[in-house]
């Protein structure tokens, strides 16, 4: 055990002693491999020094917390600056190789000692790499999650079209979460606008399977309980055929071909009649 601790100290001292040489070599190699991205040479100097020292500290103390928080910060900034994963991971792999090479050079006459040194060095290097990689993946996942949230915010407006009538254009994929949100939004709007008719347009829904159809049927039923009639429009021929083959009972749905037809139907249900103004032609420039 003593032996091991002694060797760790020896390695740490070695890396500290070689700091400038190895660090410069690292920068050179990264530049040659085009891994630098948009860092200025000042930034490159300070960042490479921090990374170099953090790695040696990890080796010395066996404590990776500093590395973890630094990697996290690096990930946040890297993604913001548009650095690629390849540049970051590639940079660390290069550093790992440089550390490793310097150990080979140092202990090349004593294979036994070299293998002991590698036994100590390799797990630390691997651990640091996995910390960096994980920080990156986590950061990417965060971005994806935020984007998902943003898309949900955008989705499904409920539009008032006339007193007592609403239009609900559904665009994109309906998953369970969105269907639930949509139902809730529609029901609230029905109550707030005292709506009697809702035109639900699904032209923009790419696929309807039994679960999505079930969501739609349930939304229609719930709307009915609030006193609103739902007219479904925009069912494509392909979707119509598929739904019938699947065996979904849509007899409770009031469906009309397209949005225009749906609005006409809504007007009819509300007792409105659209009449063309006789002199309308005058206002349309030809």
């Amino acid at each position, binding site marked *: 055990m003593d032996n091991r601790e002694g060797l760790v100290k020896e390695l740490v001292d070695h890396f500290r002693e070689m700091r400038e040489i190895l660090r410069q070599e690292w920068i050179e190699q990264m530049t040659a491999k085009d891994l630098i991205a948009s860092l200025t040479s000042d930034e490159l100097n300070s960042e490479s020094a921090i990374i170099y020292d953090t790695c040696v500290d990890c080796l010395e103390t066996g404590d990776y917390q500093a590395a973890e928080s630094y990697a996290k910060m690096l990930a946040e900034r890297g993604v913001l600056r548009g650095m690629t994963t390849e540049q970051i991971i590639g940079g660390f792999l290069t550093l790992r190789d440089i550390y490793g090479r310097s150990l080979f050079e140092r202990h090349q006459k004593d294979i036994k000692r070299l293998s002991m040194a590698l036994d100590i060095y390799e797990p630390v290097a691997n651990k640091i790499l996995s910390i960096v990689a994980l920080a990156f993946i986590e950061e990417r996942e965060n971005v994806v999650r935020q984007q998902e949230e943003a898309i949900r915010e955008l989705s499904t407006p409920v539009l008032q079209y006339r007193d007592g009538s609403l239009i609900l254009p559904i665009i994109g994929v309906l*998953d369970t979460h969105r269907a639930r949100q949509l139902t809730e939004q529609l029901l609230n709007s029905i109550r707030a606008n005292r709506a009697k008719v809702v035109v639900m347009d699904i032209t923009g829904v790419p*696929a309807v399977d*039994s*679960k999505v159809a079930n969501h739609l049927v349930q939304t229609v039923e719930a709307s009915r309980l609030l006193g609103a009639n739902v007219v479904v429009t925009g069912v494509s021929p*392909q979707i119509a*055929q*598929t739904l019938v*083959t*699947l*065996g979904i009972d849509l007899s409770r749905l009031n469906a009309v071909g397209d949005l225009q037809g749906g609005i006409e139907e809504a007007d009819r249900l509300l007792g409105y009649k659209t009449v063309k103004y006789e002199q309308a032609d005058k206002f349309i420039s030809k």
Partner: protein
Amino acid sequence: MADEVTVNIRLESAIVYARQKGRELAAELGFSQSELTIIATAISELARNIVDYAGNGQIIMQLIEKDGQKGIMIKAQDNGPGIPDIELAMQDGYSTGNSLGLGLPGTKRLMDEFEIDSKVGQGTTVTVIKWKRNDINFKI
């Protein structure tokens, strides 16, 4: 041209992905728009079952050829709880979850061939095939 695609199914978003991939793959054989919708819907139903009942599994989609006929084979497999009574599960309107109970029987109607193999406690594999109708060649 890759004629086999595997999609791991765990989250609901994977259903959409599997559906798109299946559609792309089937489009290579020149299926019509309605047939593509039918195939995509079948994939959707099978993937949905995996998410709802098994938690995770795989959808494997493959272009196949038999006796000069081309088609797409879709295999949905999971290591979920399995189906104790397949005959019951194949009935319209039967569901242990809160669904319409049309997933399996509906998928069978959508596709040309349907095979289900399930062992309680081990998992379920559903294999379906849609054949491409051969074009009729008129000779003049």
